[in-house]
C-alpha cells in the first residue's frame, strides 16, 4: 500500500477495564479483495487474542502511544474503558493523533456525563454514529470534534408533538389552578 493512501486508520477499539470488547471495528479498504492486514479484520479469534494482548500491554501504562505488532497504537485509558486507534507503522503519528483526538473529544461532547462504560453502552447508537462520522472505512473523515458532534443526532423522542402539547397544557393547567388558589386566598 502506498504511503499516500488515504486509508490511514486500521482499527478503532473500545475495551473495558478487564480488556473485554465494548466496541471494535477493523477497517479494510473496500472493494480490493486482498487481505492486507493479515486477515485481522476477518477472524474474530485473532481479533480477540490481539485485543487481549494489546490490553495487557497498555493497561495502567499511561504511555498514550506505542508500537504493537506492526501497528502504531494511540490510546487513552479512562476510568473503566480504554479507547484505541490503530494505524500503520508508516503513518504520520501526529495525523493519527488528530484522528484519535477527534474520536475521543467528540465522544466527550456527546456523552454528557463523561466517557465511561455505562454511558457508552447506554448511548451506543450515538457512539457508533460519532465513530462513523470520524472515520469512513479507514479514511479520516473529519478531525473537528464539534463538527462531528453536530452531525450526530440524538435518539428520537417518543411522539414528540403529543408529548410537547401534553406537557405545555399540563403546565398551563397546573399554573392556572395554582394562580386561582392564590387569588382566592388573597381575596
Amino acid at each position, binding site marked *: 500500500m502506498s504511503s499516500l493512501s488515504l486509508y490511514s486508520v486500521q482499527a478503532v477499539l473500545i475495551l473495558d477495564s478487564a480488556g473485554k470488547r465494548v466496541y471494535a471495528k477493523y477497517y479494510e479498504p473496500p472493494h480490493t479483495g486482498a487481505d492486507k492486514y493479515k486477515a485481522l479484520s476477518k477472524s474474530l479469534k485473532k481479533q480477540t487474542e490481539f485485543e487481549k494482548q494489546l490490553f495487557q500491554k497498555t493497561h495502567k501504562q499511561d504511555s498514550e502511544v506505542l508500537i504493537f505488532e506492526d501497528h502504531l497504537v494511540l490510546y487513552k485509558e479512562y476510568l473503566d474503558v480504554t479507547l484505541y486507534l490503530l494505524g500503520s507503522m508508516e503513518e504520520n503519528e501526529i495525523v493519527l493523533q488528530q484522528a484519535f483526538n477527534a474520536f475521543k473529544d467528540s465522544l466527550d461532547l456527546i456523552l454528557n456525563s463523561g466517557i465511561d462504560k455505562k454511558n457508552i453502552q447506554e448511548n451506543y447508537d450515538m457512539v457508533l454514529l460519532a465513530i462513523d462520522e470520524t472515520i469512513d472505512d479507514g479514511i479520516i473523515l473529519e*478531525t473537528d470534534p*464539534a463538527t462531528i458532534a*453536530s452531525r450526530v443526532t440524538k435518539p428520537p423522542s417518543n411522539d414528540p408533538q403529543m408529548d410537547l402539547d401534553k406537557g405545555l397544557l399540563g403546565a398551563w393547567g397546573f399554573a392556572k389552578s395554582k394562580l386561582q388558589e392564590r387569588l382566592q386566598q388573597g381575596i
Partner: protein
Amino acid sequence: MSTHTYKKFESSESGDLPDKMTIYQSCMSEFNESQINAKKCRLLIARLLRLLANGETFPETEATALFFSISKLFQHPNDSLRQAVYLAIKELSGISEDVLMATSSIMKDVQNGSDLVKPDAIRSLTAVLDESTAFSAERLLKSALVNKHPSISSAALCTSYHLLPIAETTVKRFANETQEAVVDLKPFPHKNIVGDYYPNSTFITQYHALGLLYQLKKNDKMALLKMIRQFSDNNMLKNQLAKVELVKLVNEVTTKDPQLFIDFQPLLNDWLSNKFESVQLETAKLITNFATRNSRLISSELFAAAITTLQSLLTVPRTSPKFAALRILNRISMVSPEKIVVCNPELESLINDSNRNISTYAITTLLKTGTAKNISSLISTITKFIHDVSDDFKIIIIDAIRSLSLNFPNEWKSIVNFLIDVLKNGEGGFKFKNNVVEALIDIVSFVPQAKETALENLCDFIEDCEFNEILVRILHLLGKEGPSTSTPSLYVRHIYNRVVLENSIIRSAAVISLSKFALSKNDSTLTESIISLLKRIANDQDDEVRDRATISLKFIDSARKSNNQEAQVFIESKYSYDLSALESKLATYISSDKDSFSTPFDVKAIRRFTEDEAKAMELRRKQDQFLKGNLENGRESTPGFTEESAIADSNENSNFSGPSLDDHEQDLLSTKYVDELMSIDQIKKFGSLVNSSKAVALTDPEAEFIVRGVKHLFKENVVFQFNITNTLTDTALDNVTLTCTPENPDESQLEELFTIPIVRLLPSEEGACYVAFSKSEEIVMENFLNTLTFTTRELNQETNEPFEGDEGFQDEYDIDSIFLNAGDYIKSSFVGDFSSTFDELPNEEVAVYNVKENISLQEIVDRLIVNTSCLPLESTQYASSDSNSHTLKLFGKSALKGSKIAVIVQLIKTSKGIAMKAQGRAEDVTLCADLVNGLM
C-alpha cells in the same frame, strides 16, 4: 424467548450482550409494523449493531431478511432514525444478499435528503454498489463532489475513493471536479446546526480531494509535479492533513527520481518550520530517509535543519510528537549516529520520561551515539529503571548494550556488571534471560579481560536458573573456557553441583564439561579429582549420563597414559569443521547411489578452523551483521519497502540471531571453489589448497564480459581463477583464455605452467578459466597485466548453435591487472589482547605512505582491511567521520606457516591527502616486510 432474557438486556447496566435471537425477532416484528416507532427502532438497531461489533454474526438468510426489513424504515422521515438505518445498512451489506435493493432509496436521499443525512447516504453507496452498478451513481457523485457543504463533498470524495478499484473509468471522469475540490475552501455552514455545538471549519475536504487526485494521476509524473507546484503556493492548502499528504507526494516523486530533489530543497526547508507539527515531522522524515539513500544529493544544511526540527519536537510536552521524532532519530542513529549527537542533551532528559516507550527509545538511541566517555554514566542510568520495564524493552536495551560491548571493549567492567545485575536480579522470561546470557557469551569470547569475571558470575547464575537450555549453554561455555583460566578448580565445583542437583539433560552436559578440565594445564592436581568425580557419575541412573562419563574416563585415561593425541583431541577439540560445507557434503554423500557408501565419507575434505580462526570469522560476521543490520533498518522507513519495514522494526533486536544467508552462501562458495579446483587433474597435483582470496572485479560491472578474479594459493603454486560472464544475448565466445603477463617480466619469479581455457561460453553463462604458475615456497608478490582473448561466434537463435561456416573473429580485451600481494598469504585471526601480543612479536617493520587521492578515512580503512586480509581488532574498523585521525589495528596469521602478524596503522587526514604510518610486527621477517611495504 423467555421474558427473563428480554429483561436482562433492557437494563443496560448489566453490560451483558443482548440475546441474538431476541433481537432478531424484535427487529423483524418492529420494523415491519405499519406504524413505525422511530425511537424503538433506533434502539433496536443500536442493539443489533452492538451484537455485530462484538463479533456475532447472522446466517445469510437471516441477515438478508434483516436488511430487507431495515430498508423498509426508509419510509419514515425522521433523520435521527435514518442515520441509524445507514449504519445498519453498511454493517449488514457484508453478510447479506441482494443489497442492491436499497440503492434506489439511498439515491433518493442523496438527491432530496437533508444536509444531515445526505453525506451518510452518499457514504453508504460504497457498501451497496458493485462493479456492474457503480456507474449509475456517476451523476449523483459528481454533483455532490462540487457541493458547497464540506461534509457532502467529503463524503462524495471518499466514496469515489472507495469505488476506485471497481469503477476506475467512472471515477476518472471526476478529475476536474476533484481538482476544484482541492482548491475550493468549503467552510462549515453555521446556519441550521442541530445541536448546540460550534463546529470549526477544518477544510478536510482538501485532504480527501488531494488523496483522490493523486490516485487518478499517480502514473503521470508531470501531472504530479504540477500538483506539487500548484498546491504548495501561498497557503493554498489550509488543512494540515492535506499538507502532510503533499509532503508525502514530494517524497513519492523524489523516491522515483532522486535528481528532482534539488529543486525541492527550498520548499522542504520552508516546510520544516511550518506551523503544523505534523508537516514538520513528515518533512524531517522525508529528508532523513532520502539522505540515507542518496546522501550525495542532499545539502548538509538541509539535513542539519531537519535534525534541528526533530530536536525541537523532542521538547514539546505532548507525547506523540516526541515519540515520532524519537522514532526517526533512532533510525538515523543506526546508520549515522554522529549526525545526531547534537540531540544528546534532549535525549538524555527524556531518559526519565514517565512514558516507558519514549525512555527506551531515548536510551537505545543514546547508546548508539554513545562514546567511550559517557557509556558508564548511561549504564548507571539504565540500571535504575530496567527492572520496571517489560521484557520486550529489556531485550531491546540488552541488544544495544551487547553491540556496545563489541565496540567499546575497554568499558567491559560497567557492561559486565550491568548484565550480571539484570541476569540475577531481573525478573524475566526465557527470551530475555537468553539474550543476557548471549551477550555475556559474546563478551567472554571477544573481550578476554572480562572473561573470568563473567564466567564466575555465570557460575553463580546457574545455581538457580530455571531454564534448561540456558544452563546447558553455560555449562558448555564453562567447559570450553574454564580450563584455561587461572583457577579452574572453582568452575569444577560449580559444575559438579549441577551433576548432583539437576535433571539428566543438564547432568550429561555437565559431564562433558567436567571432562575438559581433566587436561587443564593450569592445575595438574585436578586430573585425579576429575577422574574420581567421573567414576562416581558413571553409576548415574540415566543411560546418557553414564555413557558420557564412561567414554570421558576412557579418553582421559588413554590421553594420559599413552599420550594419545586422538583422545586428547576428543576431549579438547582444537578446531571445528566448516559446518555449512560439512552439511552440503554429507547431503550429497547420502543422496548419491548405494555404491558410493562402500567408500567411507572423507571428513578430511572439509575445511577445518582452529579456534582463533573460528573466532575471527565469527567476530567479522558480527561486525558485518551489525553494519548490515543497520542498513536494513535504515532502509526500513523508505516507502516501497513497507512490507519488510514493519518486520524490521519489530525485529530490531534480532540482528544477531545467527549467520545470515549471505554468509552461508559465501561459505558454500569457497567449498565450491575447492571442489572445482580438485576436479582438475593438473591442479590436483599441486597438493592441498592453502588459501583463496575473495573474488575481485576486474571489469566494470556493465561491461560486455564481466570478469572476476580469484587467487588460489598452493604451497608451491599459484592459480588464478577468472570467472567470466558473457552478457551478450546472441553471441557465444569460443576458446576463452587469459594471458597474464608479469608487469616486470625480467624480475618475475613466477613461471607460467599452463592455462585452462573455456571451450565455449554461451550467452549469459558464467565459466571459469584457470592460469597456473609455479612459485618458490617463499612469499612472492607480483602484478599481472591481463588480456582476455576469445573468438566470437554469432548464434543461430533457433538451435543455439553457431552458424555453420561462421569462422568467427578473434578479439582481445584488456582487463584490470591482478595483484598477488602479501595479504593473500594471510588469514585473519583473532587475539584478545592486541597490544601485548603486538609487543611480544620479534620482528618489526615500519613504512610511511602518503595517499594523494581524495577519499575518506573510512574508505581507506576498508581498503586496508581487504588488502591485508587481516582482522580489524578493538573495533578500529570504524573511522569516525568527524575526526581527522584514526588508528587501525590488524591481526592475522600466515596462511603458509601459521605465524602471527600484527599491524598498527596510523592515519592522519590533511588537506593534501592522507598520511599513513604502518607499523608491523611478526614472527616472520619477510612476511612482515612484504605486508607493511605492500599495503596500498
